[in-house]
Protein backbone atom coordinates (compact mmCIF):
# COMPACT_ATOMS: atom_id res chain seq x y z
CA UNK A 1 0.00 0.00 0.00
CA UNK A 2 0.98 3.56 -0.57
CA UNK A 3 1.03 4.37 3.15
CA UNK A 4 2.87 1.37 4.55
CA UNK A 5 6.10 3.33 4.81
CA UNK A 6 4.57 6.13 6.87
CA UNK A 7 1.63 4.32 8.36
CA UNK A 8 2.07 5.12 12.04
CA UNK A 9 3.16 8.66 11.38
CA UNK A 10 0.01 9.22 9.38
CA UNK A 11 -2.14 7.61 12.03
CA UNK A 12 -0.69 9.87 14.69
CA UNK A 13 -1.22 13.08 12.71
CA UNK A 14 -4.62 11.72 11.69
CA UNK A 15 -5.59 11.25 15.32
CA UNK A 16 -4.60 14.83 16.09
CA UNK A 17 -6.82 16.06 13.25
CA UNK A 18 -9.50 13.63 14.32
CA UNK A 19 -9.71 14.98 17.85
CA UNK A 20 -10.27 18.46 16.48
CA UNK A 21 -12.95 17.23 14.10
CA UNK A 22 -14.60 15.46 17.02
CA UNK A 23 -14.68 18.62 19.12
CA UNK A 24 -16.26 20.61 16.30
CA UNK A 25 -18.59 17.79 15.33
CA UNK A 26 -20.13 17.77 18.80
CA UNK A 27 -21.39 21.28 18.20
CA UNK A 28 -23.19 20.15 15.06
CA UNK A 29 -24.58 17.11 16.76
CA UNK A 30 -25.91 18.88 19.85
CA UNK A 31 -27.59 21.62 17.87
CA UNK A 32 -28.94 19.11 15.43
CA UNK A 33 -30.36 17.22 18.35
CA UNK A 34 -32.36 20.11 19.76
CA UNK A 35 -33.29 21.92 16.56
CA UNK A 36 -33.09 19.27 13.82
CA UNK A 37 -31.02 21.79 11.99
CA UNK A 38 -27.50 21.86 10.63
CA UNK A 39 -25.84 24.89 12.12
CA UNK A 40 -24.01 26.06 9.04
CA UNK A 41 -22.45 28.90 10.97
CA UNK A 42 -20.67 26.59 13.40
CA UNK A 43 -17.53 27.11 11.33
CA UNK A 44 -17.48 30.71 12.52
CA UNK A 45 -17.91 29.67 16.13
CA UNK A 46 -14.71 27.70 15.65
CA UNK A 47 -13.00 30.65 13.97
CA UNK A 48 -14.08 33.04 16.74
CA UNK A 49 -12.62 30.72 19.34
CA UNK A 50 -9.31 30.84 17.52
CA UNK A 51 -9.30 34.63 17.48
CA UNK A 52 -10.40 34.95 21.10
CA UNK A 53 -7.55 32.75 22.26
CA UNK A 54 -5.13 34.68 20.05
CA UNK A 55 -6.02 37.98 21.70
CA UNK A 56 -6.07 36.57 25.20
CA UNK A 57 -2.74 34.80 24.88
CA UNK A 58 -1.22 37.80 23.16
CA UNK A 59 -2.16 39.91 26.15
CA UNK A 60 -0.98 37.28 28.60
CA UNK A 61 2.27 36.09 27.04
CA UNK A 62 3.26 38.52 24.35
CA UNK A 63 6.61 37.48 22.97
CA UNK A 64 7.96 35.75 26.05
CA UNK A 65 8.33 31.99 26.07
CA UNK A 66 6.82 30.34 29.14
CA UNK A 67 8.21 27.11 30.57
CA UNK A 68 7.08 24.24 32.70
CA UNK A 69 3.99 24.69 34.77
CA UNK A 70 3.41 28.17 33.32
CA UNK A 71 2.98 26.52 29.93
CA UNK A 72 0.19 24.38 31.26
CA UNK A 73 -1.46 27.45 32.74
CA UNK A 74 -1.29 29.32 29.48
CA UNK A 75 -2.62 26.33 27.61
CA UNK A 76 -5.58 26.21 29.93
CA UNK A 77 -6.02 29.95 29.49
CA UNK A 78 -5.98 29.59 25.70
CA UNK A 79 -8.44 26.73 25.76
CA UNK A 80 -10.80 28.53 28.10
CA UNK A 81 -10.43 31.78 26.16
CA UNK A 82 -11.18 30.00 22.90
CA UNK A 83 -14.12 28.27 24.52
CA UNK A 84 -15.48 31.56 25.82
CA UNK A 85 -15.13 33.23 22.45
CA UNK A 86 -16.89 30.34 20.78
CA UNK A 87 -19.63 30.33 23.40
CA UNK A 88 -20.35 34.05 23.03
CA UNK A 89 -20.59 33.82 19.26
CA UNK A 90 -22.70 30.67 19.39
CA UNK A 91 -25.05 32.30 21.87
CA UNK A 92 -25.45 35.46 19.78
CA UNK A 93 -25.86 33.38 16.69
CA UNK A 94 -28.81 31.54 18.17
CA UNK A 95 -30.34 34.74 19.47
CA UNK A 96 -30.06 36.74 16.27
CA UNK A 97 -30.14 34.30 13.40
CA UNK A 98 -32.27 31.44 14.68
CA UNK A 99 -34.56 32.44 17.50
CA UNK A 100 -36.65 34.95 15.55
CA UNK A 101 -37.24 32.29 12.92
CA UNK A 102 -38.05 29.68 15.52
CA UNK A 103 -40.60 31.99 17.09
CA UNK A 104 -42.28 32.33 13.73
CA UNK A 105 -42.06 28.62 13.01
CA UNK A 106 -40.31 29.45 9.74
CA UNK A 107 -39.61 26.77 7.13
CA UNK A 108 -36.33 24.91 7.40
CA UNK A 109 -35.02 26.43 4.21
CA UNK A 110 -35.19 29.79 5.96
CA UNK A 111 -33.06 28.50 8.82
CA UNK A 112 -30.41 27.20 6.47
CA UNK A 113 -30.29 30.43 4.55
CA UNK A 114 -30.11 32.47 7.73
CA UNK A 115 -27.28 30.23 8.92
CA UNK A 116 -25.35 30.71 5.69
CA UNK A 117 -25.89 34.44 5.97
CA UNK A 118 -24.62 34.43 9.54
CA UNK A 119 -21.55 32.46 8.54
CA UNK A 120 -20.64 34.89 5.78
CA UNK A 121 -21.37 37.87 7.95
CA UNK A 122 -19.25 36.69 10.86
CA UNK A 123 -16.15 35.63 9.01
CA UNK A 124 -16.06 38.63 6.76
CA UNK A 125 -16.54 40.91 9.73
CA UNK A 126 -13.62 39.16 11.40
CA UNK A 127 -11.58 39.71 8.24
CA UNK A 128 -12.47 43.37 8.27
CA UNK A 129 -11.73 43.94 11.94
CA UNK A 130 -8.72 41.69 12.48
CA UNK A 131 -7.09 41.85 9.08
CA UNK A 132 -6.97 39.21 6.42
CA UNK A 133 -3.53 37.82 7.12
CA UNK A 134 -2.95 34.82 9.33
CA UNK A 135 -2.00 35.72 12.90
CA UNK A 136 0.34 33.53 14.85
CA UNK A 137 -0.89 32.52 18.30
CA UNK A 138 1.91 33.14 20.82
CA UNK A 139 3.04 29.67 21.66
CA UNK A 140 2.67 28.66 25.30
CA UNK A 141 5.29 25.94 24.78
CA UNK A 142 8.11 24.94 22.46
CA UNK A 143 6.83 22.49 19.91
CA UNK A 144 9.01 19.61 18.90
CA UNK A 145 9.19 15.85 18.72
CA UNK A 146 8.55 14.37 22.18
CA UNK A 147 8.80 10.63 21.66
CA UNK A 148 8.29 8.08 18.96
CA UNK A 149 5.80 5.28 18.96
CA UNK A 150 5.98 2.55 16.29
CA UNK A 151 8.46 4.86 14.57
CA UNK A 152 5.98 7.72 14.49
CA UNK A 153 7.09 11.10 15.80
CA UNK A 154 4.71 12.49 18.38
CA UNK A 155 4.93 16.27 18.71
CA UNK A 156 4.15 18.32 21.77
CA UNK A 157 1.18 19.88 20.05
CA UNK A 158 -0.36 16.47 19.33
CA UNK A 159 -0.21 15.65 23.00
CA UNK A 160 -1.75 18.98 23.93
CA UNK A 161 -4.57 18.47 21.45
CA UNK A 162 -5.22 14.93 22.56
CA UNK A 163 -5.23 15.72 26.28
CA UNK A 164 -7.42 18.81 25.95
CA UNK A 165 -9.81 17.05 23.60
CA UNK A 166 -10.15 13.94 25.71
CA UNK A 167 -10.87 16.01 28.81
CA UNK A 168 -13.54 18.02 27.04
CA UNK A 169 -15.09 15.05 25.27
CA UNK A 170 -15.41 13.08 28.49
CA UNK A 171 -16.77 16.14 30.24
CA UNK A 172 -19.44 16.84 27.69
CA UNK A 173 -20.42 13.20 27.55
CA UNK A 174 -20.88 13.15 31.33
CA UNK A 175 -22.71 16.48 31.38
CA UNK A 176 -25.23 15.31 28.82
CA UNK A 177 -25.64 11.91 30.43
CA UNK A 178 -25.95 12.86 34.07
CA UNK A 179 -26.71 16.50 34.82
CA UNK A 180 -30.03 18.27 34.94
CA UNK A 181 -28.95 20.42 31.99
CA UNK A 182 -28.03 17.29 30.06
CA UNK A 183 -31.39 15.81 30.82
CA UNK A 184 -33.03 18.98 29.57
CA UNK A 185 -31.05 18.82 26.36
CA UNK A 186 -31.94 15.21 25.77
CA UNK A 187 -35.58 15.84 26.58
CA UNK A 188 -35.76 18.73 24.13
CA UNK A 189 -34.01 16.61 21.52
CA UNK A 190 -36.44 13.75 21.94
CA UNK A 191 -39.64 15.74 22.26
CA UNK A 192 -39.39 19.48 22.74
CA UNK A 193 -43.05 20.12 23.38
CA UNK A 194 -43.37 17.50 26.07
CA UNK A 195 -40.14 18.76 27.59
CA UNK A 196 -41.75 22.18 27.95
CA UNK A 197 -44.69 20.53 29.72
CA UNK A 198 -42.17 19.10 32.19
CA UNK A 199 -41.13 22.65 32.96
CA UNK A 200 -38.10 22.75 30.68
CA UNK A 201 -37.50 26.26 29.39
CA UNK A 202 -36.87 25.31 25.77
CA UNK A 203 -35.38 28.65 24.81
CA UNK A 204 -32.92 28.46 27.63
CA UNK A 205 -31.96 24.86 26.91
CA UNK A 206 -31.40 25.67 23.27
CA UNK A 207 -29.24 28.62 24.26
CA UNK A 208 -27.27 26.40 26.60
CA UNK A 209 -26.87 23.77 23.91
CA UNK A 210 -25.41 26.35 21.58
CA UNK A 211 -23.12 27.48 24.37
CA UNK A 212 -21.81 23.97 25.05
CA UNK A 213 -21.23 23.40 21.34
CA UNK A 214 -19.64 26.84 21.20
CA UNK A 215 -17.25 26.08 24.05
CA UNK A 216 -16.02 22.90 22.37
CA UNK A 217 -15.89 24.48 18.92
CA UNK A 218 -14.11 27.57 20.23
CA UNK A 219 -11.58 25.50 22.17
CA UNK A 220 -11.00 23.50 18.99
CA UNK A 221 -10.36 26.83 17.26
CA UNK A 222 -7.58 27.49 19.75
CA UNK A 223 -6.06 24.02 19.46
CA UNK A 224 -6.20 24.27 15.69
CA UNK A 225 -4.75 27.75 15.63
CA UNK A 226 -1.91 26.84 18.00
CA UNK A 227 0.37 25.31 15.37
CA UNK A 228 -1.01 27.10 12.32
CA UNK A 229 -2.19 30.53 13.39
CA UNK A 230 -5.64 32.00 12.98
CA UNK A 231 -7.15 33.58 9.92
CA UNK A 232 -10.69 34.70 9.21
CA UNK A 233 -11.31 31.96 6.63
CA UNK A 234 -10.03 29.18 8.86
CA UNK A 235 -13.46 27.82 9.74
CA UNK A 236 -14.81 26.66 6.46
CA UNK A 237 -12.86 23.53 5.64
CA UNK A 238 -12.38 22.04 9.13
CA UNK A 239 -16.04 22.64 9.89
CA UNK A 240 -17.12 20.92 6.72
CA UNK A 241 -14.91 18.00 7.65
CA UNK A 242 -16.33 17.99 11.15
CA UNK A 243 -19.79 17.94 9.71
CA UNK A 244 -18.73 14.93 7.69
CA UNK A 245 -17.50 13.36 10.90
CA UNK A 246 -20.83 14.07 12.59
CA UNK A 247 -22.70 12.44 9.72
CA UNK A 248 -20.26 9.56 9.73
CA UNK A 249 -20.99 8.87 13.37
CA UNK A 250 -24.69 9.61 13.10
CA UNK A 251 -25.92 13.19 13.44
CA UNK A 252 -27.36 13.79 16.87
CA UNK A 253 -25.19 11.15 18.46
CA UNK A 254 -22.44 12.52 20.70
CA UNK A 255 -20.25 9.44 20.85
CA UNK A 256 -20.84 8.93 17.16
CA UNK A 257 -19.41 12.38 16.53
CA UNK A 258 -16.29 11.49 18.49
CA UNK A 259 -15.74 8.23 16.68
CA UNK A 260 -16.61 9.77 13.32
CA UNK A 261 -14.06 12.53 13.90
CA UNK A 262 -11.26 10.12 14.66
CA UNK A 263 -12.08 7.86 11.73
CA UNK A 264 -12.22 10.78 9.34
CA UNK A 265 -8.95 12.25 10.57
CA UNK A 266 -7.08 8.99 10.08
CA UNK A 267 -8.77 8.11 6.79
CA UNK A 268 -7.94 11.50 5.38
CA UNK A 269 -4.29 11.32 6.34
CA UNK A 270 -3.89 7.83 4.95
CA UNK A 271 -5.81 8.85 1.85
CA UNK A 272 -3.43 11.71 1.20
CA UNK A 273 -0.50 9.34 1.21
CA UNK A 274 -2.05 7.52 -1.73
CA UNK A 275 -2.79 10.65 -3.74
CA UNK A 276 -1.48 14.16 -3.85
CA UNK A 277 -2.05 16.39 -0.84
CA UNK A 278 -4.23 18.52 -3.06
CA UNK A 279 -6.83 15.76 -3.22
CA UNK A 280 -7.25 15.73 0.53
CA UNK A 281 -10.57 17.54 0.55
CA UNK A 282 -11.82 15.30 -2.20
CA UNK A 283 -11.07 12.30 0.01
CA UNK A 284 -13.12 13.81 2.84
CA UNK A 285 -16.04 14.83 0.65
CA UNK A 286 -15.94 11.48 -1.06
CA UNK A 287 -16.35 9.84 2.33
CA UNK A 288 -19.22 12.20 3.11
CA UNK A 289 -21.07 11.40 -0.09
CA UNK A 290 -20.51 7.67 0.31
CA UNK A 291 -21.76 7.67 3.89
CA UNK A 292 -24.83 9.67 2.98
CA UNK A 293 -25.65 7.33 0.14
CA UNK A 294 -24.93 4.06 1.87
CA UNK A 295 -25.87 4.69 5.46
CA UNK A 296 -27.34 8.16 5.97
CA UNK A 297 -27.92 7.50 9.66
CA UNK A 298 -24.21 7.06 10.26
CA UNK A 299 -22.29 4.38 12.06
CA UNK A 300 -23.97 4.63 15.44
CA UNK A 301 -27.31 5.91 14.20
CA UNK A 302 -28.99 9.24 14.79
CA UNK A 303 -29.85 9.94 18.35
CA UNK A 304 -28.87 12.24 21.08
CA UNK A 305 -27.41 11.35 24.35
CA UNK A 306 -28.19 7.73 24.95
CA UNK A 307 -26.90 7.80 28.48
CA UNK A 308 -24.89 4.62 28.67
Amino acid at each position, binding site marked *: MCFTQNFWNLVVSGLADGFLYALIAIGYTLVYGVLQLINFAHSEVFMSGGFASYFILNAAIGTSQPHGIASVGFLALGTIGGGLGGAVVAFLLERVAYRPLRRRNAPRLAFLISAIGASYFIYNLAGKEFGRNALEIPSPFTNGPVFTIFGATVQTVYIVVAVAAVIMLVLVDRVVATT*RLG*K*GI*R*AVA*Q*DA*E*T*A*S*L*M*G*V*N*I*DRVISQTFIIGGVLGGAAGFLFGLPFGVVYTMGFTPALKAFTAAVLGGVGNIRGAMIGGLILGIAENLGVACTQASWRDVVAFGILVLVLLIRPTGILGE*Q*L*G*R*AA
Partner: protein
Amino acid sequence: MLLELVDLEVRYGAIPALSAMSLEIAEGEIVTLLGANGAGKTTTLRSISGLHHPARGRILFEGRDIATMAPHHVMALGISHSPEGRRIFPRMSVTENLEMGAYRRRGAIREDLDRVFQLFPVLGERKRQPGGTLSGGEQQMLAIGRALMSEPRLLLLDEPSMGLAPLIVREIFSIIREIRATGTTILLVEQNATQALRLADRGYVLENGRIVMSDTAGSLLADPRVRAAYLGESAAPA
Protein backbone atom coordinates in the same frame (compact mmCIF):
# COMPACT_ATOMS: atom_id res chain seq x y z
CA MET B 1 -62.20 28.60 41.64
CA LEU B 2 -58.90 26.89 40.92
CA LEU B 3 -59.11 27.35 37.16
CA GLU B 4 -61.37 29.53 35.07
CA LEU B 5 -61.44 29.86 31.30
CA VAL B 6 -63.24 33.05 30.34
CA ASP B 7 -64.45 33.64 26.81
CA LEU B 8 -61.44 31.93 25.29
CA GLU B 9 -60.73 32.09 21.59
CA VAL B 10 -57.88 30.10 19.99
CA ARG B 11 -57.00 30.13 16.28
CA TYR B 12 -54.72 28.15 13.99
CA GLY B 13 -53.89 30.87 11.49
CA ALA B 14 -57.27 31.95 10.21
CA ILE B 15 -59.06 28.83 11.41
CA PRO B 16 -60.75 29.15 14.80
CA ALA B 17 -60.22 26.14 17.05
CA LEU B 18 -62.02 27.40 20.14
CA SER B 19 -64.46 30.23 20.46
CA ALA B 20 -66.23 31.81 23.42
CA MET B 21 -65.07 28.97 25.56
CA SER B 22 -65.80 29.28 29.27
CA LEU B 23 -65.14 26.63 31.86
CA GLU B 24 -64.37 26.42 35.54
CA ILE B 25 -62.92 23.89 37.93
CA ALA B 26 -63.02 24.08 41.71
CA GLU B 27 -60.32 22.75 43.98
CA GLY B 28 -60.53 18.97 44.41
CA GLU B 29 -62.90 18.34 41.52
CA ILE B 30 -62.59 15.97 38.60
CA VAL B 31 -64.03 17.64 35.54
CA THR B 32 -64.26 15.91 32.20
CA LEU B 33 -64.36 17.38 28.73
CA LEU B 34 -66.30 15.42 26.14
CA GLY B 35 -66.53 15.87 22.42
CA ALA B 36 -65.89 14.34 19.03
CA ASN B 37 -62.50 14.35 17.32
CA GLY B 38 -61.54 17.89 16.44
CA ALA B 39 -64.05 19.44 18.79
CA GLY B 40 -61.27 21.32 20.58
CA LYS B 41 -60.67 19.22 23.68
CA THR B 42 -56.93 18.84 23.23
CA THR B 43 -56.65 22.47 22.19
CA THR B 44 -58.26 23.47 25.47
CA LEU B 45 -55.69 21.54 27.48
CA ARG B 46 -52.84 22.85 25.34
CA SER B 47 -54.03 26.40 25.84
CA ILE B 48 -54.13 25.95 29.58
CA SER B 49 -50.57 24.69 29.70
CA GLY B 50 -49.32 27.46 27.44
CA LEU B 51 -48.61 25.48 24.29
CA HIS B 52 -51.09 27.70 22.46
CA HIS B 53 -51.73 31.28 23.22
CA PRO B 54 -55.32 32.40 22.86
CA ALA B 55 -56.26 35.20 20.50
CA ARG B 56 -58.76 36.45 23.04
CA GLY B 57 -60.05 35.63 26.50
CA ARG B 58 -58.49 34.83 29.82
CA ILE B 59 -57.21 31.74 31.57
CA LEU B 60 -57.28 32.31 35.31
CA PHE B 61 -55.41 29.98 37.63
CA GLU B 62 -56.14 30.91 41.21
CA GLY B 63 -57.32 34.26 39.91
CA ARG B 64 -54.14 34.95 37.98
CA ASP B 65 -54.18 35.26 34.19
CA ILE B 66 -51.80 32.69 32.68
CA ALA B 67 -53.00 32.99 29.08
CA THR B 68 -49.73 34.37 27.72
CA MET B 69 -47.33 32.44 29.92
CA ALA B 70 -44.78 30.01 28.52
CA PRO B 71 -45.42 26.32 29.29
CA HIS B 72 -42.55 26.05 31.76
CA HIS B 73 -43.93 28.96 33.78
CA VAL B 74 -47.44 27.52 33.79
CA MET B 75 -45.98 24.27 34.92
CA ALA B 76 -44.19 26.00 37.77
CA LEU B 77 -47.52 27.28 39.06
CA GLY B 78 -48.64 23.72 39.69
CA ILE B 79 -50.34 22.63 36.50
CA SER B 80 -49.17 19.33 35.13
CA HIS B 81 -50.15 18.01 31.74
CA SER B 82 -50.06 14.40 30.61
CA PRO B 83 -50.28 14.91 26.86
CA GLU B 84 -52.25 13.12 24.19
CA GLY B 85 -50.37 10.11 22.83
CA ARG B 86 -48.38 9.80 26.08
CA ARG B 87 -45.23 11.36 24.62
CA ILE B 88 -42.77 9.36 26.67
CA PHE B 89 -39.10 10.31 26.08
CA PRO B 90 -38.27 7.15 24.16
CA ARG B 91 -34.53 6.98 24.82
CA MET B 92 -34.65 7.86 28.48
CA SER B 93 -35.05 5.20 31.12
CA VAL B 94 -38.22 4.96 33.19
CA THR B 95 -36.49 6.62 36.12
CA GLU B 96 -35.14 9.40 33.93
CA ASN B 97 -38.59 9.99 32.50
CA LEU B 98 -39.96 10.35 36.01
CA GLU B 99 -37.09 12.64 36.97
CA MET B 100 -38.02 14.81 34.01
CA GLY B 101 -41.42 15.21 35.62
CA ALA B 102 -39.71 16.78 38.61
CA TYR B 103 -37.42 18.90 36.42
CA ARG B 104 -38.43 22.20 38.03
CA ARG B 105 -37.93 20.95 41.54
CA ARG B 106 -34.66 21.06 43.31
CA GLY B 107 -33.99 18.85 46.27
CA ALA B 108 -34.90 15.29 47.08
CA ILE B 109 -37.38 13.52 44.88
CA ARG B 110 -36.71 10.05 46.24
CA GLU B 111 -40.03 9.98 48.08
CA ASP B 112 -42.00 11.02 45.06
CA LEU B 113 -40.30 8.36 42.98
CA ASP B 114 -41.24 5.76 45.57
CA ARG B 115 -44.80 7.03 45.62
CA VAL B 116 -45.09 6.65 41.84
CA PHE B 117 -43.58 3.18 41.98
CA GLN B 118 -46.11 2.34 44.64
CA LEU B 119 -48.94 3.61 42.50
CA PHE B 120 -47.59 1.80 39.43
CA PRO B 121 -45.63 -1.23 40.62
CA VAL B 122 -44.95 -2.29 37.04
CA LEU B 123 -42.84 0.85 36.54
CA GLY B 124 -40.73 -0.09 39.52
CA GLU B 125 -39.88 -3.34 37.83
CA ARG B 126 -38.70 -1.56 34.70
CA LYS B 127 -36.74 1.33 36.21
CA ARG B 128 -33.79 1.07 33.85
CA GLN B 129 -35.63 0.18 30.69
CA PRO B 130 -35.79 2.88 27.97
CA GLY B 131 -39.26 4.43 27.86
CA GLY B 132 -39.65 3.64 24.20
CA THR B 133 -39.58 -0.10 24.85
CA LEU B 134 -42.54 -0.16 27.26
CA SER B 135 -45.96 -1.40 26.23
CA GLY B 136 -48.75 1.09 25.55
CA GLY B 137 -50.33 0.67 28.96
CA GLU B 138 -47.02 0.95 30.75
CA GLN B 139 -46.23 4.08 28.78
CA GLN B 140 -49.55 5.59 29.83
CA MET B 141 -48.77 4.81 33.44
CA LEU B 142 -45.37 6.33 33.03
CA ALA B 143 -46.91 9.45 31.51
CA ILE B 144 -49.30 9.86 34.41
CA GLY B 145 -46.59 9.06 36.93
CA ARG B 146 -44.33 11.61 35.28
CA ALA B 147 -47.06 14.24 35.51
CA LEU B 148 -47.47 13.50 39.20
CA MET B 149 -43.77 13.99 39.91
CA SER B 150 -44.16 17.77 39.95
CA GLU B 151 -46.72 17.52 42.79
CA PRO B 152 -49.32 19.38 40.74
CA ARG B 153 -52.35 21.25 42.05
CA LEU B 154 -54.10 20.63 38.77
CA LEU B 155 -53.54 17.58 36.58
CA LEU B 156 -54.51 17.72 32.92
CA LEU B 157 -55.05 14.25 31.46
CA ASP B 158 -55.46 13.96 27.72
CA GLU B 159 -57.04 10.70 26.54
CA PRO B 160 -55.39 8.36 29.03
CA SER B 161 -57.33 5.39 27.67
CA MET B 162 -56.50 5.89 24.00
CA GLY B 163 -55.52 2.70 22.21
CA LEU B 164 -55.36 0.59 25.34
CA ALA B 165 -56.93 -2.79 26.06
CA PRO B 166 -60.11 -2.61 28.20
CA LEU B 167 -58.45 -4.30 31.14
CA ILE B 168 -55.68 -1.72 31.21
CA VAL B 169 -58.21 1.09 30.78
CA ARG B 170 -59.99 -0.06 33.89
CA GLU B 171 -56.71 -0.14 35.79
CA ILE B 172 -55.83 3.35 34.69
CA PHE B 173 -59.17 4.76 35.68
CA SER B 174 -58.90 3.21 39.09
CA ILE B 175 -55.52 4.84 39.51
CA ILE B 176 -56.96 8.21 38.51
CA ARG B 177 -59.52 7.71 41.23
CA GLU B 178 -56.69 7.05 43.68
CA ILE B 179 -54.91 10.21 42.61
CA ARG B 180 -58.02 12.22 43.13
CA ALA B 181 -58.27 10.79 46.61
CA THR B 182 -54.98 12.52 47.44
CA GLY B 183 -56.62 15.86 46.74
CA THR B 184 -55.31 16.59 43.25
CA THR B 185 -57.72 18.42 40.99
CA ILE B 186 -58.09 16.77 37.58
CA LEU B 187 -59.26 17.96 34.18
CA LEU B 188 -59.84 14.84 32.12
CA VAL B 189 -60.29 14.71 28.37
CA GLU B 190 -61.74 11.43 27.18
CA GLN B 191 -63.27 9.73 24.20
CA ASN B 192 -64.44 7.01 26.51
CA ALA B 193 -67.31 9.12 27.78
CA THR B 194 -69.02 6.55 30.00
CA GLN B 195 -65.94 5.80 32.00
CA ALA B 196 -65.10 9.47 32.24
CA LEU B 197 -68.52 10.51 33.42
CA ARG B 198 -68.61 7.74 35.99
CA LEU B 199 -65.38 9.08 37.39
CA ALA B 200 -66.00 12.81 37.14
CA ASP B 201 -67.95 15.25 39.25
CA ARG B 202 -68.97 17.44 36.37
CA GLY B 203 -68.60 17.47 32.62
CA TYR B 204 -68.58 19.82 29.64
CA VAL B 205 -69.51 18.89 26.09
CA LEU B 206 -67.60 20.56 23.26
CA GLU B 207 -68.76 20.82 19.67
CA ASN B 208 -66.83 22.67 16.98
CA GLY B 209 -64.87 24.62 19.51
CA ARG B 210 -67.86 25.70 21.59
CA ILE B 211 -69.26 24.46 24.86
CA VAL B 212 -72.71 23.18 24.08
CA MET B 213 -73.60 21.59 27.41
CA SER B 214 -72.36 21.55 30.97
CA ASP B 215 -73.77 19.77 33.96
CA THR B 216 -72.99 17.32 36.71
CA ALA B 217 -71.59 14.04 35.50
CA GLY B 218 -74.72 12.19 36.59
CA SER B 219 -77.08 14.40 34.62
CA LEU B 220 -74.89 14.25 31.54
CA LEU B 221 -74.74 10.50 31.79
CA ALA B 222 -78.51 10.49 31.82
CA ASP B 223 -79.00 13.06 29.08
CA PRO B 224 -80.41 11.41 25.96
CA ARG B 225 -78.53 13.74 23.62
CA VAL B 226 -75.25 12.89 25.25
CA ARG B 227 -76.10 9.23 25.24
CA ALA B 228 -76.87 9.32 21.54
CA ALA B 229 -73.84 11.33 20.53
CA TYR B 230 -71.06 10.09 22.79
CA LEU B 231 -72.10 6.97 24.56
CA GLY B 232 -73.67 5.11 21.66
CA GLU B 233 -70.81 2.97 20.65
CA SER B 234 -69.05 2.60 23.97
CA ALA B 235 -71.94 2.44 26.40
CA ALA B 236 -70.90 -0.87 27.82
CA PRO B 237 -67.22 -1.64 27.73
CA ALA B 238 -66.85 -5.29 28.33
